[in-house]
């Protein structure tokens, strides 16, 4: 049981480049979330999904897109990367009334 798996672990992007952060969970959780954590700050919600085919914006969605074609996968797409998107990104999943399980994070630097 791998839990929540994120790839890649580290990435350096140039300004204006695009990339997709992958997130897969094997716990059959309906709810999935993408957070970003800036230094010294808490987790800010980017996008979330309550099930396959359903996604919605969180607190800080600008510059990002998501899709949820399957229960297992919830990729986060960055278009036209900007230095403000330098952060650590965490994917999480949960069932209706349990705690969230987090991936190990993706450390992204935009230069």
């Amino acid at each position, binding site marked *: 049981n791998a839990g*929540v798996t994120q790839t890649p672990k580290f990435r350096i992007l140039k300004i204006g480049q695009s990339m997709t952060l992958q997130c897969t969970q094997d716990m059959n959780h309906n*709810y999935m*979330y993408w*957070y970003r954590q800036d230094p*010294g*700050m*808490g*987790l*800010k*919600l980017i996008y*979330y999904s*309550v099930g396959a085919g359903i996604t*919605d914006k*969180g607190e800080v969605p600008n510059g990002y897109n998501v899709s949820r074609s399957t229960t297992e996968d919830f990729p986060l797409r960055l278009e036209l990367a900007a230095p403000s998107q330098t952060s650590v990104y*965490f994917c*999480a999943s*949960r069932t*209706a*009334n349990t*705690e*969230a*399980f*987090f*991936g*190990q*994070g993706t450390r992204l630097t935009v230069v």
Partner: protein
Amino acid sequence: DQQVKQNSPSLSVQEGRISILNCDYTNSMFDYFLWYKKYPAEGPTFLISISSIKDKNEDGRFTVFLNKSAKHLSLHIVPSQPGDSAVYFCAASSPYTNAGKSTFGDGTTLTVKP
């Protein structure tokens, strides 16, 4: 407006003593509260939770207290151990509404000295 606040960015305690981490919230719709622990270069992991129908929940060395009237919760760790050194995040949510989204505080870095 930050709905969940952890006013102490850091806390240092001696091994064997009690650690008390505090968290305040403003949204009275929150009815489920969680503490997560995070080590460097890892994702947060769940530690303990409490529903708004309770005022205390205990799990081994960890106890969470909830004061609904003050909109305040605290995490007590007794006795503290060096392995407890980590960042602790308080989170609040409404599990059955709003897609169960959690709002996180900024975290408190706990250092337990041997």
